[in-house]
C-alpha cells in the first residue's frame, strides 16, 4: 500500500510537471483527486487496512494528497501566467475601435449666455425678474420717459397688437426696460435686479438684424448711487464673464430713460492690437447704461429726491455672437441642428 501510494505520488507530480495547459492540468488533477481519481480510490481502501497499519498509512495518504494539491496549484499559477503572457504577446484586438455612440443634446447659445449671466448676477445678490412680452404702451414707453411723439413708437419700429378704437395700445416689448418699472413697483427701493428676456422690433432680417432677439436689463436703486458704482458693477460682471479683468471706458450715449447716458466699451477680449471683432479699434461697444432718469423712478413710485440708481442693457444675442463668433443672427431662430448642436451645456 505504501509503495503504491508513493508510486502514485511520483506519477502525479510528473504528470503535473508536463501538463501544458490549464485544461490539461485540470484533467490530470481530476484523474488523481477527482471523485473517480486514482488517489481517491486508494483513500477509499484505507478502511480495509489493519487497525495497526491504518494511522501511519492514513497520515501518509493525506500528506501525499496535500503534496499533490499544492503541486497542481503551483503548476496552475505557472500555466496561467504562461497563457497570459502568450495572450499579451499575440496581436490581439483593435483598441482603436469606437465604443457605442452617445448622442448629446445641446443648449442654445443665447440661452447659455443668459443662464451664465443670471448665475453671475445672482451670486452678486441680484434678483432675477421677468415681465410680459405683450406690454402696455404705458410701461414700454411712457414710464420710461419716452416722449409721446418719439419715433420709436411708430409702426416702423414697434410691433403693435390690433386694438379697438379708444382701447389702450399694446405692443411686443421693444426692450427689457419695462421690467425696471415693474420690479420697482413690486419690490420698491433699494433694489438690485436683472431681467433677461425676449424683445421685438420691426426689422428687415439680414445677417445682423432680427425682429426677435434677447436682452438683459439690469437695475440698481439705492441711496447715493452714482456712476462710479455702475462702473464697478460692470467691471465685476465682465470679470465674471471673461474670467479676467478687462479695461473699460464710458462714452456719452443717449437713451431717454437714463441721464446721464453712456455707452460702455471694453477692451477687445479677442486681440491685443485690433481684429475683426473690434474693427481694429481694440475697443468693443458692450452695452448702454446710465443713471436712472428721475422720471422713471417717479413713474415706478420711487422718490427721486431720496433714491438714485443705474440701469444697463445687455444685448444677449449680440453677446452670444461675439462670444462664439457667430456671423449671422438668423441662425438663432432657425432650429438648424447643424448650428444648434455645436453648443454644449
Amino acid at each position, binding site marked *: 500500500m505504501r509503495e503504491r501510494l508513493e508510486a502514485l505520488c511520483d506519477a502525479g507530480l510528473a504528470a503535473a510537471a508536463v501538463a501544458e495547459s490549464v485544461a490539461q492540468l485540470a484533467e490530470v488533477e481530476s484523474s488523481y483527486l477527482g471523485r473517480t481519481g486514482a488517489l481517491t480510490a486508494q483513500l477509499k481502501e484505507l478502511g480495509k487496512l489493519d487497525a495497526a497499519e491504518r494511522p501511519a498509512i492514513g497520515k501518509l495518504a493525506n500528506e501525499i494528497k496535500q503534496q499533490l494539491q499544492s503541486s497542481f496549484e503551483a503548476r496552475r499559477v505557472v500555466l496561467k501566467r504562461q497563457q497570459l503572457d502568450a495572450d499579451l504577446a499575440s496581436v490581439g484586438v483593435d483598441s482603436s475601435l469606437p465604443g457605442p455612440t452617445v448622442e448629446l443634446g445641446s443648449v*442654445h447659445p443665447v440661452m447659455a449666455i443668459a443662464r451664465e449671466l443670471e448665475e453671475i448676477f445672482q451670486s452678486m445678490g441680484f434678483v432675477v425678474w421677468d415681465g410680459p412680452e405683450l406690454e402696455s404702451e404705458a410701461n414700454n414707453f411712457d414710464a420710461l420717459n419716452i416722449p409721446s411723439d418719439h419715433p420709436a413708437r411708430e409702426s416702423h419700429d414697434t*410691433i403693435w*397688437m390690433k*386694438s379697438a378704437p379708444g382701447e389702450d395700445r399694446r405692443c411686443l416689448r421693444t426692450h427689457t426696460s419695462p421690467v425696471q418699472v415693474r420690479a420697482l413697483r413690486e419690490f420698491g427701493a433699494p433694489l*438690485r435686479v436683472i431681467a433677461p428676456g425676449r424683445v421685438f422690433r420691426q426689422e428687415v432680417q439680414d445677417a445682423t438684424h432680427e425682429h426677435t432677439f434677447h436682452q438683459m436689463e439690469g437695475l440698481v436703486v439705492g441711496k447715493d448711487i452714482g456712476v*462710479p458704482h455702475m*462702473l464697478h458693477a460692470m467691471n465685476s460682471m465682465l470679470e465674471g464673464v471673461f474670467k479676467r479683468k478687462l479695461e473699460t471706458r464710458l462714452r456719452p450715449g443717449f437713451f431717454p430713460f437714463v441721464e*446721464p447716458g453712456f455707452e460702455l466699451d471694453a477692451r477687445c477680449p479677442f486681440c491685443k492690437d485690433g481684429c475683426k471683432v473690434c474693427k481694429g479699434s481694440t475697443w468693443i461697444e458692450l452695452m448702454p447704461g446710465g443713471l436712472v432718469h428721475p422720471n422713471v423712478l417717479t413713474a415706478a413710485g420711487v422718490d427721486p429726491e431720496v433714491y438714485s440708481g443705474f440701469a444697463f442693457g445687455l444685448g444677449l444675442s449680440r453677446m452670444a455672437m461675439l462670444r462664439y463668433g457667430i456671423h449671422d443672427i438668423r441662425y438663432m431662430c432657425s432650429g438648424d441642428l447643424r448650428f*444648434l448642436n455645436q453648443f454644449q451645456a
Partner: protein
Amino acid sequence: MKISLNWVGDFVDISDKSAEEISALLSMHTAEVEGIEYSGANIAGVVVAEVLTCEQHPDADKLSVTTLNYGAEETVQVVCGAPNVRVGLKVALAPVGCVLPGDFKIKKAKLRGQLSQGMICSDSEIELSDASEGIKELPADAPIGARLIDYLELSDAILELDNKSLTHRPDLWGHYGFARELSAILKRPLKEYPSEFEWPAEASEYTLQLDDQQQTSCYQLTELSVGGGPQVSPEWMQQRLLAVGQCVVNDIVDVSNYVMLELGQPTHAFDKDKVSGKQISVRRATAEEGFVTLDETECTLMASDMVIADADKSIALAGVMGGANSEVDDTTTSILLESASFDATSVRRTALHHNLRSEASSRFEKSLDPNYTLSASQRVCQLLCEMRDDVKVDSAPVFAGSADVASERLTINVANVRTLLGIDISDQDIDQNLTALGFEVEANGDDMQVLVPSFRATKDIQSAVDLVEEVGRIAGYDKIVPQPLCAPIEVPKQLDYRRLASKLLMRLVNNHQAHETQSYSFIPDAWAKLQGLSCDDFIQIANPVNDAVSLMRQNPALSLLSQVPVNQREFPSGRLCEFTKGYAEDDENGEAIESRILAMLIWGPSDLPKSGQQSLVGQLRSVAADLTGLLNINAQYQVNPDDLQSRFGFAHPKQCLALSFARQSLGIISRVHPAVVSALGVDNSDVAVLLLDVDALVDAQAKTKFKFSSPPTFPAVKVDVALALPTGVDYAAAHNAVSAAAGKLLDQIELFDVYSGPGLKDGQHSMAFTVLLRASDRTLGDKEEQSFIQKVSKAAEQLGGNLRS
C-alpha cells in the same frame, strides 16, 4: 453727418490738433465719430506749374506739346489735349510718379511719338468739381512748385459722425455746434457766429398767414433781387460743400445749403416771379391735394401735411421740400428767402409718409431753436452780398409767430453733482464747463441757478440731471473711479418657474438628447385654419413684420414643427426643445395671458411603431415620466381624452395623452396630426410633441410631499404573468387589473412583452408583466404567490381573456 475740420476751424482754433485727436475728443465727450476721411490726400502729388512753350503736335491735330516749369531743376515735356492750354498759363501738373484719384499712376509715356512726362489736370481729374471743360486754369500769381492742396487749402479732414448719437442734440446739426463743443472741451474761445447784417429800411410788400403756431412757431420771408440770375459759387464754397458730401447747384442754392451745414438751420429760396399774390400762408394741405416737389416726386398730400401756399397753390411741403412750381432756375432774378421753424413731429411724419427725407427735414425733426431762423437769413444775405455786387436785399424781412423758447432756470446742487458723477470737480470748473456750452450760471450757496440757452432748451435739457451729464461729459468720464456698492446681505428672491424650467430644460438636454432652440412668437395666419381655428381666436398683430404672419401663437408646437424641414435632409430623427411662451386673450379683464411652456418636439421615420417604447409618443412618455419623476410628481395619464383635440387642433385623435396631477392639467403628449405635418412641409416623418405647463408643474410640486421609507427588511417574490386579452383591452387596463390583483403586496410592476400571433386566438394579444410582491413584516410564501396568480387569472377572464401558462 460729415464735418470738415477746416470749417470748424473758422470758429475755434484747433490748428494744433490732429484729426485723430479731435475725433477721439468728440467721441469721448460729445458723440461717436465713425470715421475720418482725409480730403486732398488723393491729389497730394499735384503741383502748380507754368506753361513755358506750347506747340502743335506734329502728328495729331488736337494735341499740343508743351514744356512746363514746376519748380524742379529741369523742365518737363507734356502732351496735352485741352484746347485752353497756352503759354504763360498756370496749371495743375501731375508729374511722373504722382497717383491721381482712382489709383491712376502717372507714368512716362509716348503719345503719337512725342514724350509726355506727366499730365496737366482738369477739375474732374482731381475731383474738384463734377464738370470739366479743359484743364484747370490757376490764377497768375499761383506759386510755381507749390503743392496744389496747400495753395488751394484743399487739405482737410472730414469726420463722419454717427447720426444716431446726435438725435437728441438739435444744436449739433451744423459745424458751429461742434465748434462750441470743442471750445468747451479744449477750454478755448469760441468765435461769435458771423451773422451781422444790416437790413434795409423798406418794409416788405408781403404779408404772412400762420394757421397753426403749434405746427410752425415762426416764419420769416426776405425779398432779394439777384440781377444776373444764379451763378456758379466761388471755388472755396464749392470745395467745402463737396467735402462734406453736399452737391453743388448754383450760388443761391449753395449759400442756403452752406448756412444749413454751418448753423444747422435750413432755409429755402422761392423764385418770386413764380409766386402769385402777396400773401404767403403756412397751412394744412387739402386732403388728396396733388403736389410735385423740386426733385420731381409727385405726391398726394394728407390733410395733416403742412404746406407753404401762395394765393392759388401750394409752393412747398413745409420743412421737407420746395415745389417744382416755384423752383429757382437760370432765369430767376428775384427770390423769396424762407427761414422758419417747423414742428419736429409734423415734419417727420410728412417726410416719412411721402418717403421724402431731406437734409432739411432731418434737421427740423430734431426740434431746432427758432432763434436760428433770424441768424440763418442774415448769414445767407451776408454771404450773397459779399460774394456778388448784383445781389440786393429789397426789404426788411416779414415775420410771423414767435421765436421765444420757454427756457427754464434749473437748479443744481453741486454736492449732488459730485456724488452722482463720482468726479471731484470744483464749483469753478462746473461753472466753467456749463458756461462754455452757452449756459448762464449763477451761484447760490450750495446750489447753482442755470439758465438754459434756447438752442439746448427745445429738446434735450429739461431737468437738473441733464446738466449733470453736461458737466460730466465735458469734465471727462475717464476721471470716474469705480466704487463698490454697499448693499444689504440678502438672499435674492427667485422666480420658481424660472428655476424649475431651467432644471427641466437642462435635464432634456443632458439626459434626453434634446437640442435647445428658439422659435418665433408669431405664426402665419394660415396655421389658424390648420388647427381648426379662425384668426379671431388669436391675439393679432396690427403691423406684422410679414403681412401673412400676424398671429401670436397659443403654444409653440407648430413653431417647433416648422423647424423640422431644414433638418430632415441630414437628420432622419431629432429632438428640439424650448422653454417659451404661448399667448391668449383673457376675456375677463382684457389682458393677455402668457403661458409659460416647456416644449419638446421629436421626429422620426414614419415606419416607427405607432405605440409602445419605440413609438414617438412612447418616447415622449418616458421623457415626461423622467421630468415629473425628477420633481417627485406622480402624474396621471389620460388616453385620447375627448376634449384634447378641441384645445390643441394639431393633436392626433388616436395618439394623444393628457397629463394631470390632482385633477390639474400639466400638459399633453401627442403625435402631430399627419395632415398638419405635411402642411408644414415635413415629409415621410412622424412628429410628436410634449407640452408642459410650467406654472402647473410649480403648483403640483408644491403639493407633493416627499416621504422617506426604510429599505425593505424581507425579500420580494418575483412572479411573471402573461395575459391573453382581446385586442380592445389596452395596456392601461391590463396594468390596472394586474396591479389590483397584487393589492397591498405590489412592490413593482413592469411590462416585458407584448405579442400577437401563433398560439393566440384571432383578435387576441398577449401582455406579459414582471411583478414584485413584497410584505413589510414577513417573507411571502407559495400560498400568497398562488393566490396572486389566481386573482390575475380571474381578472383576465373578466376582461374577456385568460391567463397564459
